[in-house]
């Protein structure tokens, strides 16, 4: 199990960690910076993390996934700092003997990450910027 908060997330690095002779299915989710949000043009994102706690929370989610599905390997990489349109910000990867578990676990991991892991995203539009989810 590899869990990291880094400046740049890398797909090849993630894929490397997912190698296992018993794995037949690997699902990789890559979250990237989209050029629009809520009808506005997005220029860039800035991510900030409370790193020690974020790593702990990611670890908890990963353990929950491992209890629920038979996983060979698991990787969670999240970027911090400034990210431009098209750049990857988060990579979740799961290797399992069968694809069912890989898809389900990967989906679970990204959904839970978004709910509990102390990482914050500021969206910069052409005219202003907003901390995502901060206000109702």
């Amino acid at each position, binding site marked *: 199990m590899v869990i990291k908060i880094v400046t740049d997330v890398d797909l090849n690095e993630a894929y490397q960690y997912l190698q296992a002779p018993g794995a037949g299915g690997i699902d990789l989710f890559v979250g990237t910076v989209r050029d629009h949000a809520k009808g506005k043009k997005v220029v860039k994102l800035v991510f900030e993390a*409370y790193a020690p*706690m974020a790593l702990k929370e990611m670890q908890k989610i990963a353990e929950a996934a491992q209890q629920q599905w038979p996983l060979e390997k698991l990787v969670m990489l999240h970027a911090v700092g400034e990210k431009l349109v098209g750049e990857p910000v988060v990579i979740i990867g799961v290797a399992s003997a069968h694809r069912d578990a890989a898809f389900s676990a990967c989906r679970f991991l990204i959904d839970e*990450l978004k709910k509990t*892991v102390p990482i*914050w995203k500021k969206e910069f539009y052409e005219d202003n910027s907003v901390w995502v*989810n*901060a206000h109702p």
Partner: protein
Amino acid sequence: MEILLFGITREIVGGSTLTVEPEQPLETVGQLKNWLADRYPAIKKLSSLAIAVDSEYADDAHPLAPGQEVALIPPVSGG
């Protein structure tokens, strides 16, 4: 007590840490939340506010003690 600030709470307070010096000791997470809400009305407008003690989510009843690492956790938005 010094608390760690992130994201919008860092901007509301204007710094990445806040030194909390209450008139009366804050004994629980709930009391700290009330103290903050009184001083920073903008905090009350957030969708939610959690407190982490020693990098774990802590509920309102959680006791505060010297030497803990305390952090404000505004609504998360990773991924």
